[in-house]
């Protein structure tokens, strides 16, 4: 039985969790001798107060959208893909190879090539744990974690060896050719004399991420494959009974998941760095887990949670710059948000459910049949009508 309206589940709980995280963060900031309200003001204005701030916020958010979607898709098949980090690293390798070694005539073709290569590389990196899970029962959580390390080590090797241009000390590939540079927000949104998003990394890949949110939503709730993925995720026994093969679902879902994580490289490698550097992913693969958790594995939720984490990332950076609050404290604030929105979900949920149960009649444990099961005047999903019945 749904214990409370969907809007409460999707909106109210995250908002309350965020407020709690904000209060605790405020206390932390107070404890190290700064004014929490001033800090909040700096975070907000630094992240969303200017096109400069937005240019960074949306850049980070784009990264999190890719990895968040990757985790979300796998979640629907009850597969916990912790390997987004490694898949994004290997996706970067794919981008670097096609950008460096194929002479692209125009950035649009380079973009398409990079999308394909990053998706393919990311998917391939996810495929091995997927096949091990499907055929051998090796737990996907363990194998994907291990593949993060392997990916990092592999990239390390390549960037100090084969891919490093001779004569440099830096662990990075050569810069990608001019023809592979995709438009940044500055290129797209500046008119004549007005320069917007000056010096910021946000780029075309943001729109790719938004498009992928939409495609993932279609995939999960509108296609037969999505139906099979969800069926498998909810009940393996019922899936087998329905003739939905577990091997196929595990492998296909992980390929999609890996491809999504891999495509993050279009943003950070092709769009921003314009060469492949070490540590380019910067933990975005793990933030993606928090994003998917907070977004309830729904693309719209992932989108919103990504923006929020983008704000936290960028606002946190500004805080460090303006008040000299150490970087570690900013990580603490981010961790508080993750903890309250993800891990401590039930702390908010359970009192709230009780509140709703008292206000609005919950049905008896043995549900009496009849129209009472569906109280009138409560639309199933005010936030997202398309998924009302399916989630």
């Amino acid at each position: 039985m749904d214990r409370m309206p969907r809007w409460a589940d999707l909106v109210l709980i995250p908002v309350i969790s965020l407020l709690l995280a904000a209060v605790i963060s405020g206390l932390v900031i107070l404890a190290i001798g700064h004014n929490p309200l001033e800090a909040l003001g700096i975070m907000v204005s630094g992240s969303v107060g200017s096109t400069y701030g937005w240019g960074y916020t949306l850049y980070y958010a784009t990264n999190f959208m890719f990895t968040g979607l990757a985790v979300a898709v796998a979640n629907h098949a009850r597969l916990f893909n912790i390997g987004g980090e490694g898949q994004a690293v290997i996706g970067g390798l794919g981008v670097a190879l096609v950008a460096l070694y194929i002479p692209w005539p125009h950035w649009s073709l380079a973009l398409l090539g990079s999308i394909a290569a990053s998706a393919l590389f990311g998917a391939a990196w996810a495929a091995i744990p997927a096949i091990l899970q499907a055929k051998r029962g090796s737990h996907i959580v363990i194998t994907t974690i291990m593949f993060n390390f392997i990916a990092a080590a592999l990239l390390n090797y390549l960037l100090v060896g084969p891919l490093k241009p001779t004569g440099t000390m830096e662990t990075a590939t050569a810069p990608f050719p001019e023809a592979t540079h995709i438009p940044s927000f500055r290129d797209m949104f500046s008119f004549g004399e007005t320069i917007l998003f000056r010096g910021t990394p946000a780029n075309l890949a943001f729109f790719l991420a938004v498009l992928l949110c939409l495609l993932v939503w279609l995939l999960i709730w509108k296609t037969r494959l999505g139906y099979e993925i969800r069926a498998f995720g909810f009940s393996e026994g019922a899936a087998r009974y329905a003739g939905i093969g577990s091997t196929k679902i595990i492998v296909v879902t992980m390929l999609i998941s890996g491809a999504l994580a891999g495509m993050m490289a279009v943003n950070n490698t092709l769009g921003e760095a314009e060469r492949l550097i070490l540590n380019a992913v910067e933990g975005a693969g793990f933030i993606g887990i928090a994003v998917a958790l907070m977004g309830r594995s729904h693309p719209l939720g992932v989108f919103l949670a990504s923006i929020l984490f983008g704000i936290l990332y960028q606002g946190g950076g500004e805080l460090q710059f303006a008040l000299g609050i150490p970087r570690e404290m900013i990580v603490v604030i981010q961790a508080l948000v993750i903890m309250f929105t993800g891990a401590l979900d039930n702390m908010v949920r359970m009192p709230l459910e009780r509140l709703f149960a008292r206000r609005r009649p919950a049905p008896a444990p043995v549900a009496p049949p009849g129209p009472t099961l569906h109280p009138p005047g409560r639309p199933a999903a005010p936030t997202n009508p398309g998924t009302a019945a399916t989630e």
Partner: protein
Amino acid sequence: MTSAVQSQTQSQGQSQGQSQATPAIELRGISKAFGPVQANKDISIRVMPGTIHGIIGENGAGKSTLMSILYGFYHADSGEILIDGRPTRIPDSQAAIRAGIGMVFQHFKLVENFTVLENVVLGAEDSGLLRPSLARARSELRRLAQDYELEVDPDAVIEEIGVGFQQRVEILKALYRKADILILDEPTGVLTPPEADHLFRILRNLREQGKTIILITHKLREIMEITDTVSVMRRGEMTATVRTADTSPAQLAELMVGRKVLLQVDKAPAHPGAPVLEVENLRVTDAKGVERLKGVSLAVRAGEILGIAGVAGNGQSELLQVLGGTMRATGAVRLNGRPLDLSGREDARDRRAAGIGHVPEDRQTQGLILDFAAWENVALGYHDREAYTNGPMMDQAAMKADTADKMQRFDVRPPNPLLAAKNFSGGNQQKIVVAREIESGPALLLIGQPTRGVDIGAIEFIHKQIVALRDQGKAILLVSVELDEILSLSDRIAVMFDGRIMGERLAGQTDAGELGLLMAGITEGAR
């Protein structure tokens, strides 16, 4: 036993001839509403000490709510609880235990990887140190085992013992906590007939020692067999309390449902045609190397119902799963003369395409996805059929319309295709599964435990649908652990024991006694 027929509402209290005795439990005017749903309406009941009191009613009648109030899970909106004549407040289950009430839930609440002893002690430890508690529990268990035929190996791990034993552990837990009043919620739902018999022996022993037992069930047979007094609930109200000896199954059924119910299936003689399903020498070995099917051969013809009788766990499940395409086997199976692949290359989808419909034994873990809406469940297994698809997309409008149509024809309540499957009662869930499988137009319908956990009204409906499908000339393979169901529905009966078919009988030429012997693996004495 005192006088015979009495007015229904005043008849309890005399079963031991002690009309002046104080009731062990008395509920006075208990009401409980969940918003607009009145789960319990002004319920009064007196349960006399040393009796077995049955509470019967359909799913959703309010039995579980009433017992949850008694056990402190819910608080009554109004009304009074008296234990041994004293008004008692029961704010939580701790208070219920202190008041001497023990509850055995339908779904056991045991720690799977703990031993029996540890489970019994859990939550009732004497001190911070475990050893003395365990020692005391061990000797106490030995005493209880002797007194009540409640033998369980105290050192066995829960997940390694059968459900019958697990249930005994639940009873032991209650007795260890000094319960004088034992509430059992649908205790036989998970038990095989011999296990149920053993349970009833235990309950009789408990009654002889003066314990009071409340038995919640929707099975009329159990009420008739073991209770002294029975209360009937319908739609939140207590419609009658009668002495069991003074009533009949038909009368109870009518009181439960509120109308006359056909307990017997009304069907014309079968007109079997050509064989639809032919099974030869089917063998299955499970992952542990145990042979589950040991050369099963049978045939089902068009227009007949072949019932497979047997105690659960004798290979019936495996037979259904092999035919349904979710388990590998060796041997030969032909459907309308065409061989089916048993090696695992064909899955359940291929079986459906070949014309096999399958109502699985467990609708909660196989037949339905409880978190899916009704319309998504109606498509389960058929989601790639042309009528439901639009290229790679699902044709959701068509699926929902089709679901609404099926819900109407199969009387699924509430007829709302958007409602999640978990929000339907057991009977309505089963109707969704049956509607899906029958309406797919199968040549052969496999149907396992069609009425497990289903209320009487829905049983009648589902049985009618099965007979109607037979009369359309379809072949039906029925597996049920309810011998009554097998006897009343089948045209032919095969009995399974230990992975083999022990014998086949025509339904009109056998009886429960003969089948019972075959179910126990005894062929001598059976005709």
